[in-house]
């Protein structure tokens, strides 16, 4: 046995050496980050993650801030599908960026899991707190503490192609005010029987796009899609069934729903309308505002109607918070507090025809803006942001029970609504 000992000792030495090397490497990286923090305070560099669909707005905000501040925000754009995985991996390895912006429906789960730092005091100290849109703050409120502020507001609106309306003999200035009119007008466009043109369009396999476009019709009737805790789905109500039936009728009409609607995974769901091939459909306002100048057809905008004539919108977009592993909280907060000011909201959002998160800017900041932007802004007060910890799994994930509900209700068996709704509740309530 004595002869084996040296070998063991050798292995031990090797192990110690290895530990020392990695230890030194760790010290090295620590030194680096400490160095960065030492120069920070009010200046330095703050990293930030945002996702690809809102790249334009995020870039506008960061460029405007970097132009006249010592602190520089370093923006990294994540592909929409990779957000959950990247954030999860970063939490495990403690490498989250200082500022993290994410889809507002994901924020309740992140907050509950401790991704964000508690900034209740800082948020409460904001002078214009009462003016800020509440949906994005509420989504990031957990056990009485506040974690997030609104970043980019993306609302859903109803858009229609005025050129196609003219051709179909409809009044191009009058969009639908309830679901029956929506179906009638879509059918009129479908009856044109033009190659590639359809009455409406639906993103059949993108749960995220479907909640964004269909929930407002339920809310417009004064109904709810979930209970107050977000633990039970209420999508088998008459009001919800009326929405699904409207799309079912269009799906059964020739050219009623654009080709590929049933298979659309959300990657290209805004393209057919942008190319002038869709009569009328619910649409993200951040996308349509970019079309006002570039599209070679005229566009009408209104709130999304319900079956009884009201209208509503999905207050989506991204909320933003400071991550729990952020070393430069002051630098990050400097950016956030600047972004909440009236001036910043005006410069970053209102001047670019985007939706501000600040009510006073929404009211006063769009005097020179396109009238359609004002129509969209007016819908916001009826808008809603659904909040549930398991929202992503129940609604947004590929193959979610909500996606299957729509597939059945619009294209498949008409009689499984109760079961499909129960399947969503099973996920929400776990």
């Amino acid at each position: 046995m004595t002869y084996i000992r040296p070998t063991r000792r050798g292995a031990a030495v090797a192990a110690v050496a290895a530990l020392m090397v990695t230890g030194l490497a760790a010290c090295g990286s620590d030194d680096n980050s400490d160095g960065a923090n030492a120069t920070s305070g009010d200046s330095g560099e703050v990293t930030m993650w945002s996702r690809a669909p809102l790249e334009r707005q995020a870039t506008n905000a960061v460029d405007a801030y970097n132009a006249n501040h010592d602190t520089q925000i370093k923006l990294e754009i994540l592909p929409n599908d990779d957000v959950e995985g990247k954030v999860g991996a970063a939490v495990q390895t403690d490498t989250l960026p200082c500022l993290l912006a994410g889809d507002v429906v994901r924020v309740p789960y992140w907050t509950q899991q401790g991704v964000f730092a508690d900034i209740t005091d800082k948020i409460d100290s904001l002078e214009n707190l009462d003016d800020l849109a509440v949906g994005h703050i509420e989504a990031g409120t957990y056990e009485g503490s506040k974690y997030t502020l609104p970043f980019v507001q993306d609302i859903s609106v109803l858009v229609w192609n005025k050129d196609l309306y003219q051709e179909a003999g409809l009044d191009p200035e009058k969009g639908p005010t309830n679901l029956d009119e929506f179906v009638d007008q879509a059918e009129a466009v479908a009856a044109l029987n033009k190659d590639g043109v359809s009455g409406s369009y639906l993103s059949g396999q993108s749960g995220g796009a479907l909640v964004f476009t269909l929930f407002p019709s339920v809310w417009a009737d004064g109904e709810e899609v979930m209970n107050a805790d977000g633990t039970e789905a209420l999508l088998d109500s008459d009001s919800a069934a009326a929405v699904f039936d409207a799309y079912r009728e269009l799906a059964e009409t020739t050219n009623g729903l654009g080709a590929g609607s049933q298979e659309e995974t959300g990657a290209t769901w805004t393209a057919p309308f942008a190319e002038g091939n869709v009569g009328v459909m619910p649409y993200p306002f951040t996308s349509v505002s970019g079309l006002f100048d570039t599209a070679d057809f005229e566009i009408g905008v209104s709130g999304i109607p319900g079956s009884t004539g009201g209208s509503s919108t999905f207050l989506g977009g991204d909320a933003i918070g400071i991550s729990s592993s952020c070393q430069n909280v002051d630098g990050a907060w400097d950016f956030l507090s600047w972004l909440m000011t009236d001036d910043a909201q005006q410069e970053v959002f209102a001047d670019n025809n985007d939706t501000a998160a600040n009510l006073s800017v929404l009211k006063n900041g769009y005097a020179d803006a396109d009238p359609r932007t004002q129509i969209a802004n007016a819908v916001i007060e009826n808008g809603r942001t659904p909040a549930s910890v398991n929202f992503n799994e129940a609604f947004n994930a590929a193959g979610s029970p909500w996606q299957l509900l729509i597939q059945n209700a619009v294209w498949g068996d008409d009689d499984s609504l109760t079961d499909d709704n129960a399947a969503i509740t099973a996920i929400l309530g776990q």
Partner: protein
Amino acid sequence: MVRKSPSGTEGQGLRERLAPPRRVPNAVKEHEDVRASRGHQGIVKGPSRSEVLGNRLGWTFVSPTLLIIALLFIAPIVLVFVMAATKWTLMGGQQDVNFPENFHKVFADPLLMDSAWFTLKYTFATTFIIMPIALGLAMLVQESRRWNNIIRTAILLPSALGIASSSLLFYALYSPQVGPLNSILAKLGLMEQNASLLGSPNGALWATVFLVVWRFSGYYMLLTMVGLQAIPPDVYEAAKIDGANRFQSFMNITLPLLKPTLAMTWIMSITGSLLAFDQFYVLTKGGPNNSTVTVVQLIYKYAFETKKDLGMAAALSVIVLVALVVINFFMLKSMGVNDEED
């Protein structure tokens, strides 16, 4: 290998360590001296000094590989087993041990049976299409004829492309917006112009199978070709003299002598298909409506998409690991391959 130094002293120490003692008279002498001197002290229980030296040297040579295996293979497997028995969420990190709750949750998921069934279906489809094609191609190009090098290269070329890249390539080909296939198929009257090839469950399955056959046929052709070329030509010659026709020599010489190679390619193909992920992740995302979710995709979904539960993902990984071991064991048995045949 050891260079002889003029004095004969320089290389001696090294030689003494490296070479087996018997071949070096000097070392034998020393060796015996040691034994003799020890023998005086009593009965020798432990290994001799040079054996120990040899063992130690051996371990030194093996240790880098051992370290890599321990770090990159054994440690992750142990970690997966620990994870599978632990409540371990994506954001919340490692929490307390909860065995066997993760396994209960996995078995309670209705998607599990669907994905297992789909994975099996996909595995059968790809393997039973690729294997005959690979064998046929290998026989086609095994003899050196004029154009064979070009043909071999052409067939092998898709294998040089990563599976993710080729999936992306086919995603574009299948796209109704930018792909050329839709208009061709529409003109032939096989489908509607604007419908998506990936839109129906069967369409998505066969479109993926087509991609995988294109991507892997050349690779398995190469492996099969190596096996074919290892068969001695005189066996065929003898068969020819005995009057065997081509079919008879294929059935009675090629197939039996190719058995070890075929066993290897079948196992590689089946194992690879059972672990399919990239092509479905890029092409179908498990859709339409969860009809093309493979087991590995389900692991990914548990970890990063739906449950965000690394414990559940690890539990399913363990189940898949066990299933693979069992399937491969029975495959090797049924093909009659044992250790001797290697």
